[in-house]
């Protein structure tokens, strides 16, 4: 960490932030990222666990605990062991929530089973959101570690359970099959993820922009899309736009 002295850092990208050399898991010291300085505040003594930057890279081993094992067993039974092994790349249990990282080829098989199987019954697709993990710490985005993630939050009203599915794709090939045939509610969610992240949902009935104007260029919530803004003058001082102000990491 180079910015522990409170020096002005123009922005993450400009600051020469190198994802390859960024801490890729393990520990980061200090509540404020302070290390080895003449810190008198006591913050340098804190240690927090940070596995692999924003994308958690580790896998949780079974048993997962709670109802997660029941859901997983039912899912394996519903789609078959071979399909499950091919579809689910890894499973992560964190903060009482379970995430299945799913290969996009098998997404539709999985959601259909999750909705219809009697032991699963995830009737409600609560939310679909995109996340761009570009330069989020940890290993850099490569074809093996795609930057664009589509996150599905499914709710079982019958069993009062929630799970999360996550599909990752690269920006060069941002295609994910649309789940609108199984969950019609995903229609607008997927349009939003397309609008904001440029993720293309194959098989969507009407994949158009939803929040931005139809003729907009680019996908605003990608991390390489600037926030924009103009400097503001106030009392003879100029305040730079938010994304060029100094940033703490």
């Amino acid at each position, binding site marked *: 960490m180079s910015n522990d002295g409170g020096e002005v850092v123009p922005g993450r990208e400009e600051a020469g932030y190198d994802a390859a050399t960024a801490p890729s898991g393990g520990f980061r010291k200090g509540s404020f990222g302070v290390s080895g300085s003449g810190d008198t505040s006591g913050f340098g003594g804190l240690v927090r666990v940070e596995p692999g930057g924003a994308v958690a890279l580790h896998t949780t081993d079974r048993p997962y605990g709670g109802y997660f094992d029941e859901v997983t067993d039912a899912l394996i039974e519903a789609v078959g062991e071979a399909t499950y092994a091919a579809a689910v790349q890894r499973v992560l249990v964190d903060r009482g929530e379970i995430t299945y990282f799913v290969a996009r080829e098998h997404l539709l098989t999985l959601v259909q089973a999750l909705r219809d199987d009697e032991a699963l019954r995830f009737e409600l697709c609560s*939310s679909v959101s995109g*996340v761009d993990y570009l330069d989020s*710490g940890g290993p850099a985005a490569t074809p093996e570690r795609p930057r664009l993630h589509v996150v599905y939050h499914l709710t079982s009203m019958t069993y009062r359970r929630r799970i999360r599915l996550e599909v990752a794709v690269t920006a060069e090939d941002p295609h994910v099959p649309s789940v609108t045939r199984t969950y019609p509610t995903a229609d607008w969610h997927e349009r939003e993820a397309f609008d904001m992240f440029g993720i293309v949902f194959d098989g969507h009935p009407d994949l158009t922009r939803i929040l931005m104007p139809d003729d907009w260029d680019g996908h605003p919530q990608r991390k390489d899309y600037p926030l924009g803004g103009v400097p503001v003058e106030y009392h003879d001082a100029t305040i730079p736009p*938010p994304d060029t102000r100094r940033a*703490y990491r």
Partner: protein
Amino acid sequence: MSTTYNEADPYAGSRETTEGRVYTVTGGDWDLTFADPHGEERLVVNMGPQHPSTHGVLRLVLDLEGETVTKARVVIGYLHTGIEKNLEYRNWTQGTTFVTRMDYLAPLYNEAAYCMAVEKLLGVEVPQRAQTIRLLVMELNRISSHLVALATFGMEMGALTGMTNGFREREMILDLLEEITGLRMNHAYIRPGGLAQDLPEGAVENIREFLKIMPKRVADFHRLLTGQPIWQARLKDVGYLDVTGCIALGVTGPILRAAGLPWDLRKVEPYLGYETYDFEVPTADTADAWGRYLVRMAEVNESLKLIEQALARLEPGPVMVEDRKIAWPAQLSLGADGMGNSLEHVRHIMGQSMEALIHHFKLVTEGFRVPAGQVYMPIESPRGELGYHVVSDGSTRPWRVHVRDPGFVNLQATAAMSEGGMIADVIAAIASIDPVMGGVDR
């Protein structure tokens, strides 16, 4: 953004003249899209985005056969403000001031869901008093939100007294919230780790006073509207959507409960100790606008019950987590020049302790760090499941915040509710969805 027209642009054909190239801008491709081979009955009506009955800037494109709606398309995005993107450039505490501006009729729900998501990421539990006050202000907010829903419902159906009554009653709650938080709306009162400040003196008495008045006003509302034949005729069997349709379209909240399913996250996935409170989940079995009206009216009464119980449980205690590495360093107080750091705190950091000054400066300018990971935090807002999907990369700012706004999802049901019905009923159907465009477009 510059737009380049090409030769084949159907909206702006061009021809060369001696004066230069002249463009003829036409009104889009309506003739092509809506060419009607079967006669002249078909009419395409564009409603909005500026229309009094569309709850802000909602645009509807309706295909009509006579007065029957054959197709209803919803166009949103006119109030998109990029709040989710902006959040990624502010620290975690500043986030509350943004999310509170999303669904502006239920600002405290946005704050609470966001803060609870951040707290889940941090792994901290807020003190009991803060939890009770959160529940208290959220239920006050639920009543005020439902009152606006009922008031605009009345206005859109032509019952203007319903509107004036609804807004009058809501004003009582806004006064209470102003007293408690300092602002009528956009409070930024609930903060990660607790609350911005404790309840001010006299607030509890004023809430009790409100609890005495409000039941009479609810009864007045029933007397004014519920028994009225016109009101019933306009609402009954309008905007029908059954449980299957609701779940397929992701619809939650009063619409789902009016279809008969008692699905309320306060009961099925309790948070803030809702499981220890005594309240009912009102339902109806009509699955139409009438049922939604009745459910909202009944929920106002249930919220009053919850507020009463919360008041009885208020016990002295802190309203912010003990962890000084997360808690806002200053106790805010009201001075002659408005709200600010208390004089006592300023004296302490400026005159007594250098370390306290450093601590204050670091926490206020830089903020605290949130361990990497992602959570989804759903709560029951007045409109249904309000979910915050928050991702942290371990830094002082959110990596990504996605809001599952119930208005956004519920609005998808417009076509299912309106197609095949009369054009006048479209207004009733949308009023019964109660979308708030600030939340829909974010």
